[in-house]
């Protein structure tokens, strides 16, 4: 009898123990590794253009968005809330440039081509603004929804489907939605597209005059100040540090299609015959002239060269058949020497923009990410070491196939620069991202 009682007791105890253990569930206090210092990371928001959105290879798609620099930075902050982005299923929207999956990716014949397929927004029903408010294609004036001469905000909105995808009907502008989010920490990177259009069109499209940029930027920063959030500002890279500008010329030289002649200090079309190589003419805003050391063939000229090699357009060996102005970013000439050029103008504009951004950061005590210097350094070094391999600042490595937007690893670099700036300015201790553990995410067709 005594044992029976004992047994009954033990079984009861066991049951009670089981139930209480079950109900204690999981998650005791877990101490986090990162320290926010003086900043508050409880609600993080990012404002920007395609770079902020995580746009890659001419499209906005899920697997690239996952590794957008704001998403990577937010990840290091161990947010309590989710960092929501307007995720679009693969292959995304924009006509993604993809490799052919049936040919090895390293094969030179495997050149990226745009897909005709489209993805769908996956979380369009989120009932609050996205934390990532980056909209591909936006200019600085879009942040506050300001009209510009010849291009009202509503016109700009209507001509760009990404406004609808990101903003939906939760607020007219990025600024409105930023307010609604009540952010405690803001990443702000705008201004690239205000000069990029000029650069990628070979100087045929206008840029935002620096004095207008200054006014717009100051007003925009006021909108961030109103949120009382801490912030990180990003400046604009040198135009020659993006592959869209420097890559094609280098590639054609490497392929032996063009060559630089030391004696005449000009580029020549390599014919491979005994006769001297003919010169290459480029059209500029003033007149056609021989292509020199500071002149860049834009990535958009690759189609032109393919046609020329196929004999569909006459070679640019005479001023009459010069490479069209919109495919070339001409630089300062060496003979006769002149400082005036599209390249010099673009660099000058970028410098003035960056001065505005730098003083905005110091006026408000915001962190500044000096993308201009960092990109310049990477180009000078020839790349970045990632897990023992050097990744160069070219399409398919640190840049995606469109030559403008960073790859996953490129975003990792921007994220680490951001983390460094936050740690320095706000005395935080966020952990760096190990670039080698980020998947490449190379767009590939079936």
């Amino acid at each position: 009898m005594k044992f029976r009682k004992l047994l009954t007791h033990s079984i009861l105890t066991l049951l009670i123990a089981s139930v209480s253990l079950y109900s204690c569930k999981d998650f005791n206090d877990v101490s986090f590794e990162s320290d926010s210092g003086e900043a508050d990371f409880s609600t993080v928001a990012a404002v920007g253009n395609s770079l902020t959105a995580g746009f890659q290879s001419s499209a906005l798609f899920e697997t690239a968005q996952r590794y957008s620099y704001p998403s990577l930075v937010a990840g290091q902050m161990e947010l309590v809330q989710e960092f929501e982005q307007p995720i679009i299923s693969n292959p995304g929207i924009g006509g993604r440039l993809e490799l052919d999956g049936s040919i090895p990716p390293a094969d030179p014949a495997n050149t990226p081509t745009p897909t005709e397929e489209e993805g769908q927004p996956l979380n369009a029903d989120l009932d609050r603004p996205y934390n990532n408010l980056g909209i591909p294609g936006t200019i600085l004036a879009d942040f506050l929804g300001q009209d510009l001469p010849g291009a009202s905000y509503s016109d700009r909105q209507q001509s760009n489907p990404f406004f609808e995808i990101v903003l939906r009907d939760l607020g007219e502008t990025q600024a409105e939605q930023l307010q609604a989010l009540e952010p405690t920490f803001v990443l702000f990177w705008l201004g690239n597209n205000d000069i990029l259009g000029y650069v990628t069109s070979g100087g045929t499209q206008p840029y935002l005059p620096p004095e207008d940029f200054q006014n717009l930027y100051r007003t925009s920063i006021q909108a961030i100040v109103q949120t009382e959030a801490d912030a990180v500002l990003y400046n604009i890279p040198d135009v020659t540090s993006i592959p869209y500008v420097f890559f094609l010329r280098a590639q054609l030289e490497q392929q032996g299609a063009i060559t630089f002649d030391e004696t005449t200090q000009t580029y020549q079309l390599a014919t491979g015959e005994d006769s001297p190589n003919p010169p290459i003419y480029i059209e500029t805003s003033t007149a056609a002239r021989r292509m020199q050391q500071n002149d860049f063939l834009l990535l958009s000229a690759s189609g032109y060269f393919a046609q020329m090699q196929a004999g569909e357009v006459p070679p640019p060996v005479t001023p009459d058949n010069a490479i069209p102005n919109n495919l070339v970013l001409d630089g300062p000439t060496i003979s006769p020497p002149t400082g005036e050029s599209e390249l010099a103008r673009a660099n000058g504009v970028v410098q003035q923009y960056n001065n505005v951004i730098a003083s905005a950061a110091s006026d408000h005590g915001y962190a500044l990410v000096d993308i201009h210097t960092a990109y310049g350094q990477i180009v000078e070094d020839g790349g970045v070491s990632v897990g023992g391999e050097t990744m160069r600042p070219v399409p398919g490595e640190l840049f995606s196939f469109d030559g403008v937007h960073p790859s996953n690893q490129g975003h990792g670099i921007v994220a680490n620069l951001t983390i460094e700036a936050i740690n320095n300015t706000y005395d935080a201790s966020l952990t760096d991202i190990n670039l080698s553990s980020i998947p490449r995410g190379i767009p590939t067709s079936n």
Partner: protein
Amino acid sequence: MRKLIATIGLVFVCSASAYSSGFSIYEASIRANGMLGAFSAYADHVSTIYYNPAGLSGLDGIRVSTGATIIAPRSTFRGPFASSSSYPGSDQRYEMAEQNFFVPNFYASYEIEDGLTAGIGVYAPFGLGTRWDSNWVGRTEAIETSIETIFVQPTVGYQLPDFGIGDVKIGAGLVIAAYGNVNLSRAVEDFAVEEDIFSLDGELDKPGIGYNVGLLYEPTEMVRLGFTYRSKVETEFSGDADFGDLPSALFPSDAGGGTTLELPANWVAAVNVQATENLSLEADYVWWGWSSYDELVIEFDKTIPAFGSDRLANERGYDNSWQIRVGGEYTDAWTRGLSLRAGIAFDRSPLPTEHMDPTLPDSDRWLFSGGVSYQLTDYLAVDASYIFIRSEERINRESVNGFHGVYNTHANLPSLGVTMKF
């Protein structure tokens, strides 16, 4: 590409259960479940074929027992921590898909002559599975992982002649892995394609062979000592690899793959004490030779250009581990024919933190059980038991895959069966 190889290499981490030492399952009998497997010196049930083959020799007539355990594990992951570096960190909570596993067992014995009994057992000593949402944060680590095995074990037990030192029984069985299946999938994000999930589905190629031996020694009527050893069993699996929409130039669409899994050896030292006429108590120490699972190699039937090889090796680095099981049985409680059982056990995980990943969120755990049998007729008894497992919360900041976070697991295991004697 190096990262790619590493990710795929991890895929074939065969693992599965979240509820037992590594991926072993020792819930091999409903009666033993009631005492949490503290059964290797118990010997008075036909499932001793699994727990200690020496126990067979005491069983007269024809004995049959069959039943099934439902294993209902629940795991969560919270994280990833910022030190996970490439994963978008957060303290979000992810729940493993709720799966319930049906684990059957069957045992039969026949007494050939006094002191010599033969029997056969069918049970599933390794297996189970984990499944996470295909879009969860750890999708490149694991989506689905499962392993199933069915073992068949013909066995004999023999009682040695009386040397005047008490009863000595011995037994031995042939352990045959007769059926097996492994299944696993995970995402490969090195290429942005619609279907970026790699999966492998393999079947057991041919039966794997091992053995078990056992010894029971009864110095007095009150005390029984048991010792049993199970050898490791080598199992070879092969099947088809599916690379989804990943570039076919690197991942051939018609590749086959396979692996060899060494299912570990173990030994048990047990002592059973008949405390009173009705109460017996048992304590078992169980040792597991998990260090044999140091590396997992996948062999493909052709070169996979993405790996530059037809072979992928992945370090697992398991440690040997142990368990302590304590159980008790009280017979004829309240009414004749009603037996009550209870048990408690501690199980040391063989999985080192640096090799931990969501394919197997294993950790040290406590197990609690209760069981009951009722003798309906002279020939038929019904057995039922319940086990609750609570794994210790495991905070991982060290794993080499860089996927750091907090794992929590618990499991409920109800079981039901019958025991017959003719």
